[in-house]
């Protein structure tokens, strides 16, 4: 072992710092708990600066707000005053044009459900917001994408800004928007435009970059001016990718419009979910949630047809016929179609769901509580505060003793030595570190260890630049006094990501091995990805009430999808030739999986993990609504108190964590890809 690998060196440094911190813990308490006196009042500074800045642009913002009022009112008026048969028929006609009979049926059934649920007026309010914010987002996003394509110099900064716009938690920028625009639906509108513009910009840029060089050259050689080249050749050629952007933009806008309901002031469907959730009317809340899901699915599938390569043409006469039917019905029953909110066909269902739910929870109370408590006491709590504090006679039946700590470390060290002797030094040291972290708990890790450990990891993943970036950014969090909350967020999302990685990996593996499993898993994944974040809260809340465990489950439900998808994709996309070569060499199915498919899938799986981490952070903030501690809670509190400084700082801290995790995993994935020559 004359020369240690980069990974071993990094692990060794982290282990030494960690051990030092543990040893000196009792004599130097500031090693573990960052002294409050060292904290810079950064939150206050950010707040003061932002308030000054916001005051500066407030008049403009308010003027813009007043301006946006008109299209919003108009959209709202049109949608809520159009008789519902006409709305349904128009949507169905559009669905027919886009996707034929299946799509049209989906539209009729979906909107029929909405009508019958009695949430029609609220839904139209939500749609009105989407209808105004989406064009705004499309114009802004498209503009950014085109400009970034035209001026390569600004491409990188634009990408960075887009990254940040998508990693900063959605709630975080609601607070400054609230101060800028005042309470009201305009905040939701603008927040959703801000949130929905980046995917559009990204896809426009990507599409334009991917236009075949020869198509661009052909446009030049035809003698087109730059504008002619762009609008007559490049943009139409990039059409499919741009449509992917439109689809994502629509979905993001819908999701954000619903999240923005927490601000209130607008009688939309998201507000309805929130309200019924607060009143513990879970049946109704589930119903409203279903309405949201229906809109999400309809919007997704209808706009999704635009991204398809070859679309079937559907007879426009049928569409006109459907539309005419809508006009006729509206005219014929003019008097009786005016009150679409009065239908309540599903109210009895909702009530019986409520009743069924309470009888279910009371009947299975023992099991549910046991499940919840077991996970809390034996998994989450030890991860959070460490075995030395989590192991109590009350829960575990015995108390943690120093001897046990010693045994834990000894076991870790022994395993480490075994691995080190087998040549896997880095893995061995990591085991030792893991033992230390288990003992201490993530939320109580000494800060020098976290800084050094993260820096070392970043160094291995992406070289010196990333290491410096990581340490500086984490240092900012430390100095701003949000450290403890950041560690709490790290713990919860870490636990959720870990659970997602294990379960998602297993499900992905099963789906890769058996097409039957994939047939079942795939629609579930599609479904989970279409559902706006917010709706995930309803079912977990129904069964497990408010608390960390519910938040944990909601995060997993949302963040597990990419892990499943990427794992499966990586495993099944091994080139046919490699499979044939392995078969010819006489590999069994299991050997093939272990030796050929898994290594080849590694970069793809890492990307899945990366997405899962980002999803988990995004959901963490939403989950704050139902009880988590940490940064998410701070952001949510800041929103309630219109505390811009806290909101922005906590949002930034959250974005920093997400960003660092993202860069590190990308770094590892890149390394794997390079090693495989991909």
């Amino acid at each position: 072992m004359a020369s240690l690998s980069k990974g071993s060196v990094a692990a060794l440094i982290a282990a030494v710092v960690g051990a030092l911190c543990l040893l000196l813990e009792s004599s130097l308490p500031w090693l573990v708990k960052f002294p409050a006196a060292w904290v810079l009042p950064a939150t206050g500074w950010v707040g003061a600066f932002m308030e000054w800045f916001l005051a500066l642009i407030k008049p403009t913002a308010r003027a813009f707000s007043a301006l946006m009022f008109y299209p919003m009112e108009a959209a709202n008026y049109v949608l809520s005053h159009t008789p519902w048969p006409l709305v349904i028929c128009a949507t169905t006609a559009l669905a027919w044009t886009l996707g034929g009979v299946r799509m049209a049926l989906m539209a009729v059934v979906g909107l029929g459900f909405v009508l019958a649920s009695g949430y029609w007026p609220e839904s139209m309010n939500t749609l009105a917001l989407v209808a105004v914010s989406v064009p705004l987002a499309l114009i802004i996003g498209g503009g950014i994408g085109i400009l970034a394509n035209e001026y390569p110099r600004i491409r990188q900064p634009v990408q960075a800004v887009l990254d940040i716009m998508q990693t900063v938690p959605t709630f975080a920028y609601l607070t400054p928007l609230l101060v800028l625009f005042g309470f009201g639906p305009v905040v939701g509108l603008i927040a959703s435009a801000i949130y929905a513009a980046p995917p559009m910009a990204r896809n426009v840029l990507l599409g334009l970059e991917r236009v075949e060089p020869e198509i661009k050259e052909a446009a030049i050689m035809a003698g087109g001016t730059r504008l002619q080249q762009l609008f007559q050749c490049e943009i139409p050629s990039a059409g499919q990718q741009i449509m992917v952007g439109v689809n994502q933009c629509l979905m993001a806008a819908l999701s954000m419009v619903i999240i923005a309901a927490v601000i209130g002031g607008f009688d939309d469907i998201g507000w309805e979910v929130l309200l019924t959730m607060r009143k513990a009317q879970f049946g109704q809340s589930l119903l409203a949630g279903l309405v949201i899901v229906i809109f999400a699915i309809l919007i997704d599938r209808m706009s999704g047809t635009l991204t398809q390569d070859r679309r079937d043409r559907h007879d426009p006469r049928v569409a006109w016929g459907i539309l005419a039917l809508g006009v006729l019905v509206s005219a014929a029953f003019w008097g009786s179609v005016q009150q679409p909110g009065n239908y309540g066909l599903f109210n009895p269902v909702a009530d019986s769901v409520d009743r069924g739910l309470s009888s279910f929870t009371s009947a299975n109370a023992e099991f549910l509580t046991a499940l919840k408590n077991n996970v809390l006491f034996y998994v989450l709590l030890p991860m959070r505060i460490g075995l030395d504090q989590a192991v109590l006679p009350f829960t575990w039946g015995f108390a943690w003793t120093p001897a046990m700590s010693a045994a834990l470390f000894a076991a870790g060290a022994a395993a480490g030595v075994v691995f080190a002797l087998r040549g896997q030094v880095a893995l061995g040291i990591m085991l030792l570190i893991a033992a230390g972290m288990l003992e201490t708990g993530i939320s109580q890790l000494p800060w020098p260890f976290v800084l050094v450990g993260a820096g070392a990891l970043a160094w291995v993943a992406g070289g010196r630049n990333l290491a410096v970036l990581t340490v500086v950014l984490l240092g900012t969090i430390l100095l701003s006094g949000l450290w403890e909350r950041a560690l709490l967020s790290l713990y919860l999302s870490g636990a959720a990501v870990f659970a997602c990685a294990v379960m998602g990996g297993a499900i992905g593996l099963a789906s890769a091995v058996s097409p039957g499993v994939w047939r079942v898993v795939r629609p579930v994944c599609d479904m989970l990805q279409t559902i706006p974040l917010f709706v995930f809260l309803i079912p977990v809340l129904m069964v497990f009430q408010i608390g960390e465990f519910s938040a944990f489950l909601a995060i997993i439900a949302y963040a597990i999808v990419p892990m499943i998808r990427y794992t499966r994709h990586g495993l099944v996309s091994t080139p046919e030739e490699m499979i044939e070569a392995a078969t010819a060499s006489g590999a069994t199915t299991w050997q093939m999986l272990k030796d050929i498919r898994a290594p080849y899938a590694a970069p793809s799986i890492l990307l899945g993990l990366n997405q899962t981490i980002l999803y988990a952070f995004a959901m963490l903030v939403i989950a704050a609504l139902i009880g988590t501690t940490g940064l998410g809670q701070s952001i949510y509190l800041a929103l309630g108190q219109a505390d811009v400084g806290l909101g922005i700082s906590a949002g930034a801290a959250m974005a920093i964590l997400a960003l660092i995790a993202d860069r590190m995993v990308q770094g590892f994935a890149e390394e794997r890809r390079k090693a495989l020559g991909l």
Partner: protein
Amino acid sequence: MRTSGARLSTPPLTELTQVSGSETPAITCRNVWQVFGNNADSALKEALSRHETPEAAAQDLRGKGLIPAVQDASFDVKEGELFVIMGLSGSGKSTLIRCISHLLHATGGEIRIDGENIVEASPKRLIELRRKKLGMVFQHFGLFPHMTVAENVAYPLRVQGVKKKQRLAKAQEVIELVGLGGREKNFPRELSGGQRQRVGIARSLVADCSVWFLDEPFSALDPLIRRQLQDEFLEIQAKLRTTIVFITHDINEALKLADRIAIMRDGKVVQIGTPADIVLRPVDDYVREFSKDVAKGQHAHVSSVMQPGEHHVYGADDPGLRQDMTLDAALARCMELYEPVPVRTDDGKLVGVVNPADLAAALQVEQG
């Protein structure tokens, strides 16, 4: 070769016009460089001022991490000439044609089209040139996927603001010319590779260009279609007589089509000459290696194996050989002969003798 004098330094314009005679060449390239990398312009200037030969300058640039993709290329293309640039992938031929069509801004040197230096042309003038004078065909066709065949072909007219009816009528003419009549309403994705390239050819011809660039137009097609399109291309060229710069990596294609061929290697033009020059008088092993694969019987002439002079002994048979016959044709006439035979000019004057065994041997060696 008339370009050889222009290699070392940039000659003044007067000298250029002298070199090419009274008639202005359609295309003139003088010391064209294309360097990729950071600050390529200044790096090239510095390297050229510091070194005597282009080779040394290129070496210098490479040492700094820049890529000299085209080095000091100089040649003329006469009006109506079919000029083929041939080389392997990475030799810089595609880069060179992009410099001439100004899809890339040449880092150094001078490129004149009908006497006008296009390296310094304004963007506006370039658009005008492309609309009126230049046409280009691409290896992977570069068709607009969202336009029908007719719309694709008519596009160069559309950007000029020609009325729809007029431009579609004109497009129709060219579509007939390339044999795609009846396919006007199809989209590119519905066509085969050969048909797509016909669309590409039609589009480049619709605006009546006088200089025609073809960048490996037939390389992406399978051999049968390729040959068919080559023949049709020659027919079109016989009708239109435009000036053509044609890129290929296929020596057989180059020999079949070219009036003259420029062979490129690692960014340098290593030889310029007629097909026969290339086959019979390769300047170095690299060019010789190319012509090795060629069916020389079709390109080499009797004169290359003839013993010249009037005093050789020869046999009784006279199969009627001429100096400029190809080896294949000569061999066909000497199938059954073993004695040396006379070679005569068209008016019957003896210029030398050929041993039939030498004819066969020349082909043997070259094909093996």
